[in-house]
């Protein structure tokens, strides 16, 4: 880096997954502050089913976002953003997604399908990610291979199983992401 360090600079990691899989819990388990919440207005073009004119209507939606921070050094802060539960919103929120180091997709073994959209999103945008399987009380009744098959996960995508309420699991998921990024070919 050739920029003059003036205080700290920041990077971000996205914490994604279906509604209620434990995104904010994971953010809270590793963040140095209690997760903060902010909102954004997103303008969506929606076509009403009864709109015979076919004209798009603009609708403004308020979307909430929970996030936390990890101060790595006086020069570097990592922000963790739990993406809004309804993917159709954060898909449109470029500022949330652009420039992210990568993502952690949380999935719940009892309803893996709620995290399909997050996985698709990272794949389609070429954003590196790891999958963290959240098992209530760490009880997992399915084999890793079964889960990978159900999620149609590429063999090179790292997957971890644990309980998002435990800080060590959140930490390990983030470390797995960084290791995954470091293992990617240069150039």
């Amino acid at each position, binding site marked *: *880096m050739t920029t003059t360090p*003036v*205080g700290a*600079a920041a*990077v971000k990691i996205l914490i994604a997954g279906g509604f209620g899989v434990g995104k904010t819990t994971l953010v809270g388990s590793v963040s140095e502050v209690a997760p903060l919440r902010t909102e*954004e207005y997103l303008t969506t073009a929606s076509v009403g089913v009864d709109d015979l004119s076919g004209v798009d209507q603009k609708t403004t939606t308020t979307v909430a976002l929970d996030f936390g921070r990890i101060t790595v050094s006086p020069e*570097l802060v*990592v922000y963790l953003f739990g993406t809004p539960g309804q993917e159709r919103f954060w898909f449109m929120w470029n500022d949330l997604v652009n420039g992210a180091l990568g993502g952690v997709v949380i999935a719940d073994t009892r309803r893996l399908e709620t995290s399909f959209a997050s996985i698709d999103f990272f794949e389609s945008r070429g*954003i590196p990610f790891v999958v963290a399987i959240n098992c209530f009380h760490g009880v997992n009744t399915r084999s890793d291979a079964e889960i990978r098959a159900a999620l149609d996960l590429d063999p090179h995508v790292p997957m971890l199983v644990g309980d998002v309420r435990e800080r060590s699991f959140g930490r390990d998921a983030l470390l797995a992401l960084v290791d995954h990024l470091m293992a990617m070919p240069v150039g």
Partner: protein
Amino acid sequence: MNALPWDDEYEYEDGDDGADSMVRPYTITRGRTAPERDDLTLITLLTTVPGPVDAYGAPVRPARLQPEHRMIIDRCRTPAAVAEVAADLDLPVSVTKILLGDLVAQGLLSARAPISVARAAGGADRGLLAAVREGLRRL
């Protein structure tokens, strides 16, 4: 040249009725719905400039500031990301960016862009990743 938003022509009521939370968000921005600068991201870090001076070295005398502007100046004495300022002010990110843009334009606040993660050029900087890794390991 357009009139600056804090010029007198944009007169506003210095309300003291404690009804701030009832104010529609874009009233705070005096009707502006888009920031004048588009380089503020969720994780752009903002720091209050101590003893700000203008291009000629003269101390900056802040033009009309709203209560929200003053809250931001207080908040950013410790560097904070756009998202954090928005959360603290309990305002939407887009509204917060407009207010932050006002202060950066007046030289009262400095903005530090996030570290760019140029994936097209072969992934994130190794030194950066090593630093992140080291920080995470301490958790």
